[in-house]
């Protein structure tokens, strides 16, 4: 369950990053929105990464 939650958050985060980049690429002066999406996406991804955890070696 934890794995799926973590991976899903990573998925949402990385999609945020991708959408932000696409917005910046296609819109003049869209840097502010792009940066916001990148930061939020990265944060959500990292939260997902922490929730996912890794099994002990």
């Amino acid at each position, binding site marked *: 369950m934890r794995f*799926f939650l973590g*991976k899903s958050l990573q*998925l949402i985060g*990385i*999609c945020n*990053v*991708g959408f932000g*980049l696409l917005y*910046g*690429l296609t819109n003049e002066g869209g840097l502010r929105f792009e940066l916001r999406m990148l930061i939020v996406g990265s944060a959500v991804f990292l939260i997902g990464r922490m929730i996912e955890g890794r099994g002990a070696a």
Partner: protein
Amino acid sequence: MATVSAPGSTPSSAKRIEVSIKKAVGPGDDKVHTWPHLVRAEFICAVLVTVGLIVWALLVDAPLEEPANPSRTPNPSKAPWYFLGLQEMLVFFDPWHAGVVLPSLIIVGLMVIPYLDINPKGNGYYCFRDRKWEILTFFLGFHILWISLIVIGTLLRGPGWNWFWPWQAWDPHKVEALTSVNLPYLVGIRDYFWAAVFGLGIVVAFFAVGIAAMYAWVVWLKGPEFMERWGLVRFGITAFLFLNMIAVVAKMLMRHMFNIKYIMETPWINI
């Protein structure tokens, strides 16, 4: 304006290469900066691949097997997929040749490409018309000699490293007769010494005739002034590397079609 000095030269004698930097105005411009126009698009591609991998990780379990047991080795015992091309080459060559010589030639050959290539066209414009030779050589080296061997090793090799088509079951009891013979034996030479001499002669003749033919072809195709500009050393290295690529394909086909094991066999080295 940007200036570049030739390395190792004094400032007074430095060769100045002046390149005007054009301000990028947008993706539709003729020349735009790498960042952000290219890097952003590349990063989007990386994001798409990552999304695909995450979805894959969510839906499919990794095909991990039980912990290794030295008393029960798997059959077939396969290397990781990216090494299966090398493992497949072991079918056709001596371990020293498949595992040391050929990978070294690949690495060295890739490293010397910038020094061998004097074609000014295609620096940043990789259209087929201007770079037929380079692109076709890459196709031979990458797709035929690397990717196809990985595909064969991954999908078509089963128990006993026997060849199985996709519609055939992997029968571990399948027995294939080892009928391969060396080329000197095939032509009737039974003496070990003369078989080695014959094999060595074939290998030397292949490279001698190949280099001569390639020289004549390049002169015929591009003219003697091109060969003069290219230089004998650059030509010789290119021809040697290219003939090795051809030789690998020829050797594999000889094994598949005529069951020829080695061209040259000695107690120390087999080719």
